[in-house]
């Protein structure tokens, strides 16, 4: 008996030694996730975590989402949680707000925010103002999300940026993710927030992959609403942006770095409540400011930043007037050359930075 077990035991030791020698561990390739998949993941995790969360909108269920952002969710969660609506923005936005008042946690998708104008009364008068008007009795835990701003060749009625319009209103929170990490962290925070949150996504960013840091892969990964991120440290000038233009700012910064100009690029992440502290601290360091946005110049996000800089401690640190880079002050044209020149390009950002720095 002992002889047999001895026979068995020795080969095992030899085998395990073999195993140790043959197999070795390599670091995994950095995880790349598109913005679309990041939003999808974020919604999926929150739907799983809290059964009061549900998604409604046009084509979100059986079509997998007009832009495939909600792909797979209907198959997983079914008709009760993922609801296809008729083309009735005012009606279904109101239904979503009512459901939120009654204690559910709806995600209301607008196919694009241009269509939210049909429903804007429900967003502002029924959702944003209610907690205040009721003296704190009636919260409205709702998320309005969808693509915002310019796309490619979709012309005037489908290209408007609503950051300034929604950012104007007390009672709303407004976020504007740029990359995948932003998209996942912000949609999760928005869904968990007990207030109406407008999430301004960007259609052109949906398909863009970004490296997903390990912490972003957690089911509890949240990005706080109201906090900006410094994407790139710099010393000569502060460049503040939100959404897709953040990428253009980083491109401009890379070009300028070769010429010895170091830009500090701030990704706002949240439009309201705006993180002025981060912007001010940066301006007090660099003494120069350029804001970059896709929306129209009048009464825009950049205009608000400039006004607040003037009112705060950073004004005295400016060595030049603050400058805005924005979309052109026209309804978006269709022809490519016209459209390209109606949104801020990298060259426009570089030009504005050099003008501000007087170089």
């Amino acid at each position: 008996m002992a002889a047999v077990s001895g026979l068995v035991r020795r080969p095992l030791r030899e085998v395990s030694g073999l195993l140790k020698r043959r197999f070795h561990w390599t670091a995994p390739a950095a995880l790349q996730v598109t913005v679309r998949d990041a939003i999808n993941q974020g919604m999926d995790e929150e739907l799983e975590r809290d059964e009061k969360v549900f998604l409604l909108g046009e084509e979100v269920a059986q079509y997998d989402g007009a832009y495939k952002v909600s792909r797979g969710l209907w198959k997983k969660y079914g008709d009760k949680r993922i609801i296809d609506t008729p083309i009735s923005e005012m009606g279904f936005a109101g239904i979503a707000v009512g459901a939120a008042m009654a204690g559910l946690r709806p995600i209301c998708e607008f196919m694009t925010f241009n269509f939210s104008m049909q429903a804007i009364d429900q967003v502002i008068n029924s959702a944003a103002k209610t907690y205040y008007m009721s003296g704190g009795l009636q919260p409205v835990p709702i998320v309005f999300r969808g693509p915002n701003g310019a796309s490619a060749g979709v012309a005037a009625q489908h290209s408007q940026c609503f950051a300034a319009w929604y950012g104007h209103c007390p009672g709303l929170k407004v976020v504007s993710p740029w990359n995948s990490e932003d998209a996942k962290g912000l949609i999760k925070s928005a869904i968990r927030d007990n207030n109406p949150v407008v999430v301004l996504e960007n259609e052109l960013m949906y398909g863009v992959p970004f490296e997903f840091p390990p912490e972003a892969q957690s089911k509890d990964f949240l990005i706080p609403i109201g906090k900006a991120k410094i994407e790139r440290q710099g010393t000569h000038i502060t460049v503040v942006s939100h959404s897709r233009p953040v990428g253009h700012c980083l491109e401009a910064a890379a070009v300028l770095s070769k010429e010895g100009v170091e830009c500090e690029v701030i990704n706002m992440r949240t439009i309201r409540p705006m993180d002025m502290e981060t912007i001010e601290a940066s301006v007090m360091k660099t003494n120069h400011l350029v804001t970059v946005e896709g929306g129209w110049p009048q009464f825009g996000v950049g205009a608000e930043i400039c006004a607040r800089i003037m009112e705060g401690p950073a004004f005295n640190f400016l060595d030049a007037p603050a400058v805005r880079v924005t979309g052109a002050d026209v309804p978006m044209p269709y022809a490519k050359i016209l459209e390209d020149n109606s949104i801020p390009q990298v060259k426009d950002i570089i030009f504005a930075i050099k003008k501000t720095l007087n170089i």
Partner: protein
Amino acid sequence: MRKMLAAVSRVLSGASQKPKCDLHRLEEGPPVTTVLTREDGLKYYRMMQTVRRMELKADQLYKQKIIRGFCHLCDGQEACCVGLEAGINPTDHLITAYRAHGFTFTRGLSVREILAELTGRKGGCAKGKGGSMHMYAKNFYGGNGIVGAQVPLGAGIALACKYNGKDEVCLTLYGDGAANQGQIFEAYNMAALWKLPCIFICENNRYGMGTSVERAAASTDYYKRGDFIPGLRVDGMDILCVREATRFAAAYCRSGKGPILMELQTYRYHGHSMSDPGVSYRTREEIQEVRSKSDPIMLLKDRMVNSNLASVEELKEIDVEVRKEIEDAAQFATADPEPPLEELGYHIYSSDPPFEVRGANQWIKFKSVS
């Protein structure tokens, strides 16, 4: 004498017969007879009288400039708010537009809190932040200022009822003026498609502000306007009609058949709001005729007295008690202080840590607490 009457009447209850309601896509309507117990009768009487006197007190306070802004009174329409409440449970839900003081009371708030909200004091139900059109209570979602917007909201509350699976229904009210809003038809469509337990209720008081129904609607059969949604038209001045119709409608919704539409034919004595005398688009004779023939409180009183459910003296006693309650509430509403200025920024966001809110200039800051 009264005690004896009371003892006998507790056993007695009145039976009432009414003509059938007009029906749309319904084989049967609510029952044409019902039983009114003395207890219920007295309760309804007291509630309607309270709403009546509360609205008249609001009229008075408005003329004294103690109430400001918009003030839309519902005197004449008491059978609607009291009758609807009698037909549902406290766990059901209700939402209406801006002529909401009566519903705020029937849904459970006190006259004190309502009047103090009208006078903009800190003891108001919304701490003075909302005013006449923005009062909220448990399972009562206002009080909504934008005509028609409350209807999709109500359908959404009904969606939540269905989602939660608790057999609750949502009463979603709107007026004859609002009935022409597009978003109401969007709500009809989705409620029917998804079989939401929503009772759409058109409170037809014949005038949308200064515009009569004939001048505003191509079809004034509001109970049919839901098209594929079954409907019924109800005498909104008779509280028992309203109650029975509501019970019928609620049972319909609770059975999972989907939404239903009720038109309550009613009348407001006041103009559209306090700035409208209400006689430029209708005659004083018309108003007087409704008062003398169809006043809801008078109708209930006559019915109770004629069935020996209560004596005239008894009801007069209730009148006296109600008057006192209203007086006390008005006293409170006039004496209570305004909300503290420091709280101007409160209640912007729910469940958030405190932050700063900008005032009229950059140096004026208000703290915002949830």
